[in-house]
């Protein structure tokens, strides 16, 4: 027997993970999101989502992230100071299979012939991650039943303010949350180098930096410490997650912050970050260019972990749309112009010119 063993084999055995650069990756629950950020969420990393103004789409993203954990039998840690975490779990979407489009495209291939000059071109792939088997699709109209959820190992953390004065943080919520995460991470199964019984911990923190987190900063009259607690929290979390099988998925309402500086400092501590810009309530909602989409999807940070070369997505002009069974991120395209219009007068050769000396329809021979 050979003495050579590939050590990475034992690592990839955790359910719902894949290995890249000697590091486990998990799915965010949205295959197209996994694709645009480089194959999923890296273990021991922080994934930041800058919320849309109403927060509705970022909530959907959190639900997908948690539902994927339930389906893969991974452990969850759900923290929030705005909503009761037990309530969030009740609305997790159920996994479903998407009807495949292959059959339709095969039939149509037989009937239609592609012009010779376009035959050599690669197929335009505007929707990402459609042909991957990593991650699941979920049906938002159906919820995971309560029995399945009860079988999962879920730690709930509903944060309420105490009167205790903490030396290291202005607002004790941050300290409480960090201690709870640290305590949870002490379990052997979440250590990166543990030999057996390994599992993934999905940490979800909803609306970190909402008024309940930031109000203490605003009380300070000098305002020099605005956002300092939040920045410190995120850095501490980065250090706590190191060498663990845990992934933090954090949504931040950055539009509520007083300055851009806070977010830029936060991005330094995060590994990957995206921003959702919803069309709801904005002028873009009625713009025909965006008629097919619900919002724009911006990638704000992509890190190269355990590697020098960061992932480069095929496009940075991304938009998303939410269907009942699918949250899909696509390359932003202008909609096809299907209606015939004669907006430009010079194109319409049948139109009678207003000036004299023009021609009429009967004058055209062909």
């Amino acid at each position: 027997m050979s003495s050579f063993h590939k050590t990475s084999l034992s690592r990839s055995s955790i359910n719902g993970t894949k290995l890249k650069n000697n590091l486990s990756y998990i799915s965010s629950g949205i295959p197209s999101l996994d694709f645009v950020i480089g194959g999923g969420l890296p273990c021991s990393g922080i994934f930041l989502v800058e919320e849309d103004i109403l927060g509705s789409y970022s909530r959907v993203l959190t639900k997908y992230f948690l539902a994927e954990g339930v389906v893969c039998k991974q452990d969850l840690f759900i923290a929030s100071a705005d909503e009761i975490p037990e309530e969030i779990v009740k609305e997790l979407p159920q996994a479903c299979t998407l009807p495949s489009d292959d059959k339709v495209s095969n039939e149509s291939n037989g009937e239609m012939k592609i012009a010779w000059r376009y035959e050599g071109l690669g197929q335009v792939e505007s929707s990402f991650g459609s042909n991957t088997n990593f991650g699941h699709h979920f049906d938002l109209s159906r919820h995971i039943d309560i029995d399945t959820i009860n079988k999962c190992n879920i730690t709930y953390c509903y944060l309420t303010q105490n009167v205790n004065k903490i030396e290291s943080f202005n607002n004790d919520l941050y300290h409480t949350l960090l201690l709870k995460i640290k305590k949870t991470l002490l379990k052997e199964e979440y250590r990166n180098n543990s030999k057996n019984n390994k599992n993934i911990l999905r940490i979800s923190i909803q609306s970190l930096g909402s008024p309940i987190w930031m109000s203490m900063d605003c009380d300070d009259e000098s305002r020099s410490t605005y956002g300092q607690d939040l920045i410190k929290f995120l850095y501490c979390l980065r250090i706590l997650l190191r060498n663990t099988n845990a992934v933090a998925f954090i949504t931040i309402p950055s539009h509520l912050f007083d300055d851009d500086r806070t977010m830029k400092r936060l991005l330094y501590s995060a590994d990957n970050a995206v921003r959702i810009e919803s069309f709801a309530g904005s002028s873009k909602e009625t713009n025909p260019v965006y008629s097919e989409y619900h919002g724009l999807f911006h990638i704000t940070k992509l890190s190269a972990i355990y590697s020098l070369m960061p992932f480069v997505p095929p496009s940075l002009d991304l938009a998303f749309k939410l269907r009942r069974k699918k949250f899909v991120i696509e390359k932003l395209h202008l909609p096809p112009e299907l209606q015939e219009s004669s907006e430009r007068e010079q194109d319409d050769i049948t139109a009678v010119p207003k000036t004299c000396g023009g021609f009429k329809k009967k004058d055209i021979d062909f």
Partner: protein
Amino acid sequence: MSSDILSSFQLDKDLDSSKTIVVKEINGCDSSFITSCVLGHCVRNKNAVFVLSTHNSLQHYHNVGLKMNYNLQKSIESGLTYFYDAGEELVNSLLENSCQPAQEFWIKIKELLLEMYNKFNSVNVIFDGVSHLFDLQFNMRQVNEICKELIELIRSFNNSYLIFQCNVASDDDFTYILANLLAHKADILAEVESLSSGLSADVSGHLTIKYLSNKYESDNMYNFEIKSSQYLFKLFDRGVKLLAPGTV
């Protein structure tokens, strides 16, 4: 693949005096590739190196090193490389609700450095993520004090180099002031900037190197501003390639 970086930082030849290099990370760019290249050079040439890291983990540098054909872990075991995870230590003391004073932090670093210097007669230092000290609520005075002491100590060794990696979050931030303060004391200043147009598969970013110490040389006595070297760089799994602007 790391020779381009080493030669542009003038680290490929023997040092006749100590050198301070400051790397400014602008526009969210990551400069850990410089650390990986320099670490590779030290490990291969068996030079003593002290990594003071608050940003990236040892696992990260080790895994990158394996791809670049050197084994950081082995070098640590041999004692030639010391990886001081300052972030973990500071965060642990913070969570225990006992903030570690800046002075105590510096004394510990100094002890470790002097011990290494006595053993190997030279020790190069890489400080990865100086700006994270602000995240841990060190103030400008404390951070500047630590950096000043560190620069003075390395200068007194007379045969080592010191690399600071400083992230600049925005122009109206402490991190920007710190980067400029460090640049003032640097022999070589490198500005690493990601492309303003976004990510590209062909080029990873801009690298501008300013040889600030050259202005005191007799050749440049009458030049007001020393010319800087500008490159584009592209990162690969096994290293980095510097390209002159316009040649991709």
